[in-house]
């Protein structure tokens, strides 16, 4: 029991590594704030393009979405980070990480928004068009607001996944929370920093998980 305390919950070490981990948490938040809006915008773009019902465009979009959903995000990240130098493209670390996560995240958000668009009855678009709204105006005022509300639980769930995803950036030594925790662990020969990092993730993400449980139970119950 005592070893458990000194190795996993060592208060001395916690005090020492706390600022360093907080720095890492800052990077985790920044990375999330970059990747989530980009991914949402990309996903919405995919859904809007596929609502045009152009056959070839749709095939291209499906290939994009399936391709980047099939790759484990870490594989994508490693491929971009270690593969791009061979193409003589020198991407800064943050950009490489953001690009890898964007490709993955936008395809997931794309699928979610597409399902949302499909959940809106055709009559909604027709009613809007019959009063003279353009396709674009009808999308913005009538389809997107309803679609977003219909798939809100999925959007939040995927947002949670994106924040968890940022921990992979530690593999290429981007100084985010997990990366800093592992460095601190190596320096202190003690597991406390990683446990502390886990607690910080819990604190950050637990409210989202709770919210999600509520929304999901409600939405399945409606079907």
């Amino acid at each position, binding site marked *: 029991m005592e070893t458990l305390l000194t190795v996993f919950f060592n208060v001395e070490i916690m005090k020492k590594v706390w600022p360093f981990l907080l720095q890492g948490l800052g990077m985790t938040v920044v990375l999330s704030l970059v990747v989530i809006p980009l991914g949402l915008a990309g996903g919405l773009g995919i859904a809007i393009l596929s609502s045009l019902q152009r056959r070839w465009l749709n095939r291209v979009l499906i290939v994009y979405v*399936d391709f980047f959903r099939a*790759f484990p995000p*870490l*594989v994508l990240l490693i491929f971009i980070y270690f593969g791009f130098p061979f193409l003589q493209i020198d991407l800064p670390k943050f950009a490489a990480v953001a690009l890898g996560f964007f490709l993955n995240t936008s395809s997931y958000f794309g699928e979610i928004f597409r399902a949302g668009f499909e959940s809106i009855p055709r009559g909604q678009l027709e009613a809007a068009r019959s009063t003279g709204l353009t396709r674009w105006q009808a999308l913005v005022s009538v389809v997107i607001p309803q679609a977003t509300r219909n798939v809100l639980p999925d959007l939040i769930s995927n947002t949670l*996944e994106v924040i968890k995803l940022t921990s992979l950036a530690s593999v290429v030594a981007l100084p985010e929370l997990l990366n800093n925790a592992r460095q601190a662990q190596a320096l202190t020969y003690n597991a406390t920093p990683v446990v502390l990092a886990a607690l910080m993730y819990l604190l950050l993400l637990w409210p989202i998980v709770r919210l999600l449980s509520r929304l999901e139970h409600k939405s399945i119950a409606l079907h």
Partner: protein
Amino acid sequence: MNPVVNVPPTMSTLDRFLFSFFNPDIAGRYWKAIAEGFVTTTWLGVTVIITGLVVGLALAVARAQHVKPLNFCIIVFADVFRALPPLVIIIILFFAFPYIEMAMSAFTATWLSLSLVLAAFAEEIFWAGILAVPKGQWEAARSTGMSRLETLQHVVLPQAVRMTVPPLTNRVMAITKGTALGSVVALHEILNVSSSASSESGNATPLLVGACAYLILFIPFVWFGRWIETRFAWKR
């Protein structure tokens, strides 16, 4: 951290690209190792899916017994393992547990982490499915003298599981892709083998072979998910 880029300086851009990404010599040298990684990834994936789904279903069934302290524990378990990034769990199991004399292999650490995460998500999905079965179904079955467990088994679960297939398929795929995280603790699965081959040879071909291996493994999954979704969309 970047590997040495090992390209003859006199090559044209296209030749350099082909040499770095589509190099048959390098592919020939490493494909066996990558194939072994493929077997490890597949085996890890299968064990994770089985463990995660079985544990998740068991927890959901346990939760349907409405024992308050037990339910509290199940909810805490599900919340924690849905909130924590899987890589954090793997790292704690692999690097931190040895400090308390509980060292485990890279395979065990990855398998256990992903199974716990899948169990947490699967429990929530199964539970939502159980809740979605109308109360009248319970009452009808109980009125014919069936026990709570019998009702669950013969009446509620068959209906609940149908509803859970699409979300479960997506979740299983997302978590199975997490097998690549094993590379961080030096488990010799596809990503680990191909990225170390790539830095050893100073050539990106093994990475590309590895990427293809993942496509072979997961594209059928993606298609299955699509098929499931259209199938269930008709029924609605």
